């Protein structure tokens, strides 16, 4: 009782803080600060139609590297956290069968999903989307596969290679920015190309592709571990 009252009080207090924030909130009418710069100069400097992508991949590319790292870390940690013994690894997951609908749709949809994912991260600098979104879409395909057949073996080595190569490439592209352009993760060491083209905006499509692959691989990896951990006795 006391506890509930205390929680109620806490929530009310949080509400009070938010109320103060809300009260002093004045909707913006103009872009200010860095947003104004990005809006005004972004397309010109980076060559990407999608300003958000310009920010994510280049202006704040260092953050993005951090994000990728977070996914990578999570996957790695889950990798050794949910590691199975040899004996468990060989087991099969006992389940009551999955629905026919799921199995069939997986067969049809998964290639399309993969393709769509690739499309999303390749066009990240032009249209809404990007590496993370694309990667997530790919991973959702993997999720569908797993759901359709819980005992399905995801090619572990392929994931590993994709993950590793794309990650290293991302770092190398970042470093190329130092050597060939203005700084770490600068996309402009490749030509900015024609605004609006697929192969424009310098290294952005490249970087975003690697990010997309890596994200897809990481999330798939995590899903794979979760799936397998059911075998743990």
């Amino acid at each position, binding site marked *: 009782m006391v506890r509930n009252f205390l929680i109620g009080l806490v929530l009310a207090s949080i509400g009070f803080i938010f109320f103060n924030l*809300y009260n002093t909130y004045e909707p913006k009418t103009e872009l200010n600060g860095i947003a104004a710069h990005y809006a005004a100069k972004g397309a010109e400097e980076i060559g990407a139609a999608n*300003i*958000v992508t310009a*920010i*994510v991949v280049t202006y704040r590319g260092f953050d993005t590297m951090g994000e990728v790292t*977070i996914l990578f870390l*999570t996957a790695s940690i889950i990798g050794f*956290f949910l590691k199975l013994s040899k004996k468990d690894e060989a087991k099969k997951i006992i389940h009551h069968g999955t629905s026919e609908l799921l199995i069939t749709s997986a067969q049809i949809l998964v290639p399309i999903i993969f393709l769509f994912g690739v499309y999303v991260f390749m066009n990240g600098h032009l249209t809404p989307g990007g590496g993370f979104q694309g990667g997530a879409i790919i991973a959702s395909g993997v999720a569908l596969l797993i759901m359709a057949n819980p005992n399905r073996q995801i090619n572990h080595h392929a994931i590993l290679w994709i993950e590793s190569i794309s990650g290293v490439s991302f770092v190398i592209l970042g470093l190329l920015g130092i050597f060939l352009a203005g700084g770490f993760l600068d996309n402009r060491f490749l030509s900015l190309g024609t605004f609006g083209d697929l192969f424009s905006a310098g290294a952005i499509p490249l970087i975003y592709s690697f990010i997309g692959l890596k994200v897809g691989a990481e999330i798939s990896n995590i899903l794979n571990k979760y799936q397998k951990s059911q075998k743990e006795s």
Partner: protein
Amino acid sequence: MEYLQLGRISLIISFLLIIIGFWGILSQKNIIKIIVSFTILDTGINVLIVSLGYLKGRTAPIIDASVSQGPNHNVLNAIVDPVPQALVLTAIVIGFGVTALLLAYAMKLFKAKRTLEINQFNDLKW
């Protein structure tokens, strides 16, 4: 109808989501429910971030036809703030990572004691 404009509504919703998230975190005993509460909290924060970047009557920060066709051909006056949209991407990814890890932990905790009651896991205290 100034008080019902989109920016304010989404702000209120985000605050409500955050408070619901806190409520769940503080009052639910089941670890899975707590994790779900965390995702609600994260969602609330993400909505908050996006709604703070909202400018009335503007379009997405992608320079395409919608921008050029706007009433004002200046990009500066056509798009919403792109920065929060970039930030929210990061926030979502971080939220994903944390949630994934929390779920892995939940599995291990369940393995350890065959329960998901959070108050069963107080081996370390005082």
